Structures are given as C-alpha cells and as structure tokens.
C-alpha cells in the first residue's frame, strides 16, 4: 500500500491569456523517482514552481506532503528540498561552511549539523576537500554536494531541476547512485531532465507538451504503448507536435 506525497488535480497556471500549465493531474508515491519531462517551454518549470510553493496556481488543487499549495507554503518549504539547474552552492565558502549554512537556514541544531556534515563528507569521500573553497571542486563534485545539501534536512520530497546538465556520463551515473540511495531511504524524487537515458532510470515518467501532460507511465509501458525501442523515440513522437518552443 503506497501513499501519495504529491497530489495534483487540474492544477493550472495562467499568465494573462497564456496557459503555462493546463489542468495537470498526477500523483507521486513515497520513495518514488518521478521523471518530469518536456521540451523547453512546455511548462515544466512553471509546474515545479507551483509545487515548491514559489508561485500560486491560478486554479486546481495540489497537496505536497499533505500540505495545501495555496495556504500552507511555509510547511511545504520545510518538507521539501530543491536543487536547481544552476549550480547553487556558495563558491567562496568551504564545503563545510556551505553545509553549515544550509543546515542552519533549515533550522537544524548545531549537533544535527555536525553529525550530518560528518556523515555526508564520509559518504561522498570529501575528507580532503572539506575545508577547501567550493570553487576549487570539479563540477561533478559540486553537483553531488549540491544534491547532498538539498537533502540535508531530510525532506520528504526533493525537487531536482535538470540536475545533471553539463556533467559527463560517468559522473551522471554516480549522481544517480546518490538519487537511488535517497529513494531507498524513502525520499521522493521529482526530477526534470533532458537526457533520455536518465528518464529510463525513473520509476515513472510524465511527458509534458504545451502545458499539458501527454503521457504518464513507467518507461517500459510507455515504450510498449508507442511501439518504441527507447525513450528518445517516445519523447520525439509526443513532442514533435508541440507548438510552443523557446
């Protein structure tokens, strides 16, 4: 028996006449890795912003970890983690200082921060780099660190906005190992990506076209439905009809 941690019903966002997200309905279960795919301009970011409590929906319903996106944004913010496509740690602070800072603004106690940072540094094998400025780390490390910072406060759900942009395939694979680890611990992963091989790693994926969710299923079922050999073909089949581009 699984419980839904993200629930949306006809969630819509309008900017004037433009409907960025049109009646989106889906559910994501606890511990699930949910891929949120779509071409540029399809409305992924808008949808994600609504789910994170950054933007108020125009209509429809949604709950995140049981909290309402209209009224309980403060509680939502405490229950989620977020990692953006831009690398988002402070480069002029050390690895440890970054962890302390992000732990601090999420209200962790000093003791919690201490144990968490030791754990994290051992887990990532960053003992040598702990007191170095983040700017000196290679991009792959930064991404992993960024992800670890996003789940430092043990959120129920973590939103990843194209987390592996510009990273080599080996590091990407390692990054996904971290994602699997987190999912195994019961963290729900909501991830957007442009890489179709990554889409295959997800438990379920949704494909958004022109503000509407066109398909939502496991990668295997999607391939069967569209008689495709891989996710690339599925995505192309759905997205080529798109009217909106960048």
């Amino acid at each position, binding site marked *: 028996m699984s419980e839904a941690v993200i629930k949306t019903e006809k969630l819509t966002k309008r900017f004037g006449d433009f409907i960025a997200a049109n009646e989106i309905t889906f559910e994501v279960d606890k511990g699930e890795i949910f891929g949120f795919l779509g071409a540029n301009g399809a409305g992924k970011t808008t949808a994600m912003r609504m789910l*994170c*409590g*950054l*933007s*108020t929906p125009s209509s429809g319903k949604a709950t995140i970890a049981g909290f309402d996106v209209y009224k309980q944004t*403060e509680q939502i*913010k*405490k229950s*989620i983690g*977020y*990692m*953006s*496509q*831009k*690398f*988002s*740690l*402070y*480069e*002029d*602070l050390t690895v440890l*200082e970054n962890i*302390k*800072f*992000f732990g*601090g*603004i*999420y*209200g962790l106690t000093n003791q919690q921060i201490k144990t968490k940072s030791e754990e994290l540094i051992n887990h990532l094998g960053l003992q040598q780099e702990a007191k170095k400025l983040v700017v000196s780390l290679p991009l792959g490390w930064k991404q992993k660190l960024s992800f670890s910072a996003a789940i430092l406060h043990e959120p129920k759900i973590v*939103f990843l906005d194209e987390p592996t942009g510009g990273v080599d395939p080996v590091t990407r694979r390692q990054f996904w190992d971290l994602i699997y680890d987190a999912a195994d611990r019961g963290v729900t992963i909501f991830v957007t990506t442009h890489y179709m091989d990554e889409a295959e790693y997800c438990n379920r994926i949704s494909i958004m076209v022109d503000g509407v969710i066109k398909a939502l299923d496991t990668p295997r079922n999607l391939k069967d439905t569209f008689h495709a050999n891989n996710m690339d073909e599925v995505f192309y089949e759905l997205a080529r009809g798109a009217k909106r581009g960048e």
Partner: protein
Amino acid sequence: MPIIWTKYFMNWPAAPNAVNKLIDMKQILIFIRKEFAHVLRDRKTLLILFGMPIVQILIFGFALTSEVKDARIVIMDQAKDAASKQIISKIAASNYFEIDKTVRNSQEMKEALKQGEIRLAVIFPANFYDDLVHQNEARIQIIADAIDPNNATTLTSYINSIVQDYQMDFNKTNNIPYRITPELRFLYNPELKGAPNYVPGVMALVLMLVCVMMTAVSIVKEKETGTMEILLVSPFSPFKVIIAKAVPYLLLSLINVVSILLLSVFVLDLPINGSVLLLFAESILFIITCLTIGIFISVKTNTMQVAMLISLMGMMLPTILFSGFMFPIENMPVPLQIISNIIPAKWYYIMVKDIMIKGLGFGAIWKETLILAAITMVMLIISLKSFKIRLS
C-alpha cells in the same frame, strides 16, 4: 487564581512562538555570518569598502582642496617706493604665494602669464605711495589666470586681504584715515580651508556608494548564481534575507564613518565641534536610507553589472550634483533646486556640516532628520513591495 490560570492558558501559545523567534534569530545570525565571509574573502570588495573612503578623503582633503599654497605669481613694480616694497614683502612672506619673478613691462608680464604656470600678476602703478598719501587713494591691479575661476577668486581674495592688512598698519601709524574698503570675513572657515566642505560631502558620497552598491550587488549576485532560488524555496523568508543582507553592510558602513572621522580629525585637523553621538545617529539613519535604495535596485535588476552601473550612475552623479557639496544649490535654476530636495545625501550633508563644523545640536537639524526619515520610509515601503511582487 482562576483569572491567573486563564491568563496563563491564554498565553501558552506564546511559548512555542518564542522558541520559533529564537530559531529565527539563529538563522539570521548564520546568514549574517555567511555575508561577512563573502565580504572578508573578496579582496576586491574589501579594497573598495575600506580603501575608497580613505582615498577619497585624502584626495578631496588635499588634492582637490580650494585652498591654494605656493601659487606662482609675478610682480610688476613701477613705483618701487616704500609702500609697494612693503606689500611685496608681505606677499612674499605668505605661504600662499611664491614670487616667480619681477617683470619690468606689460609685455613681459603677458608672456609670463601665457606660459600657464603663473597664476596671477600684481601691478603697482608708478607713484603708488604718492597717490596713497596725497590723494588718499591708490590702486593696485591684480590680473589672475581665470581658466580655473575658483582658483582665481581664491587667489585674488588672498591678495586683497594682504593689501588690507597693509592698509590697516598704514592707517595706524598715520592719523588720517586712508581709503577703507569693506572687510571680507570668512565665517567658520577663516583660512578658506577646503576640508570643512569636503569631509561631510565625502562622508555622504562614500556611504551612498558603499551601502547602495554593496547591498544591491550582493543581493543580485545571489540571483545571478542561482542561490537566491534555493533561499526562496527554503523556509528562510525573503524578508529575513533582506534583514540579513542589510545588517552586515550597516556595520561595515559604520566602520567607514569611524575611519573618515578619524582621518578628518587627525590628518585634516578638522575637529568635531558637535555631539559625536548625534553624528552617529544621523549617520545610521542615512545608511539605512542607502540600504533601502540598494535593496530597491537589487529587486529591479538581474545582473551584477547592471546593478553596479545603476548604483554608480544613479547615485553618484545626483549625490555630487545635488547634495550641495560641490555646487551650491542656491545658484541652481528653481526646477533643479526642487529636484535636489529628494536627494537623501543633501539632507545628510547639511546635518553633518551643522554637527561637525558649526557644532549645532538636534534642535537645529530636526527638520532635516524628519525629511530624511520620511524618504527612508517611502523607499522602504517601495522596495519591500516590489520585492513581494517579484515573488508571486
């Protein structure tokens, strides 16, 4: 007893609230510590932050001062009598002038002035002493190089006062009063020192630049690098971000105020005649004004370059033009005079001058304080509002 109980009962939600507040304070402190780390690790920022005030005070205090020392002049003495010689020796003895040479005719004098290194020529006509004694009036011609009009005015007034000085001596020894000209007196700045004007002006300018630019850039930097997004998604509220951004720059700016005052007292020999406490209180008010402007700019811009440009062009120019420290506002056309009223630096400049130089108390500057506080409130409301609009 029951009343106390209900009271206690009614109050109990206040307890977790207090705990929340404590966590809030801790979060803000963590944020402030992070801000200090940013500033202290960036050598360029440090240099701008603490180097600029010192450099500006020294430049304005010494290099750009209207006080003139050792101006090179020529003398054409056609009289060569007792009076002219005495005046010439007085001029030579002053610190302000250095007599380059004595010329014999107007041709030589013109040549000398054309070179550009001679600032001024003093001409004594023939029979100078005779005229003075017999006609009770004698004339001296002063020809100044007026390419720099301020300089020329200053120098001629120096010569004027030397001549008057002589006149007074002369009248003392002779009982008949000879030509008496109105006395020029320079209130508050009898030696025409440059520093009294520049120190308050530089204080306004430096605080304006540091606070506005640093705050704007530091907030926009978070937008540019993407960390702002992370902060917005976190439970740390945008209002707290603003507070945590403003506090470090308020403290750093106060260090600037201290260093400027120390420089002006110990290097420029300009004492603080009024209350130091009042001076600091008004400075804090002005710093807060600047911080709110910085926050406003940061809300409206998305890149550090634009934020920096707007801070520089939008703040420095109006501050220099309209604060009254370089160009007297009374001489401006009325529309510009009206515009000058919305420049916060103008009011701060007036207050610092009143406190530091004239030694006046709060009674003399409450009006300016009120105006500055009103500008601050308006800016605060506008910037908080636009910060919110951007978020939804």
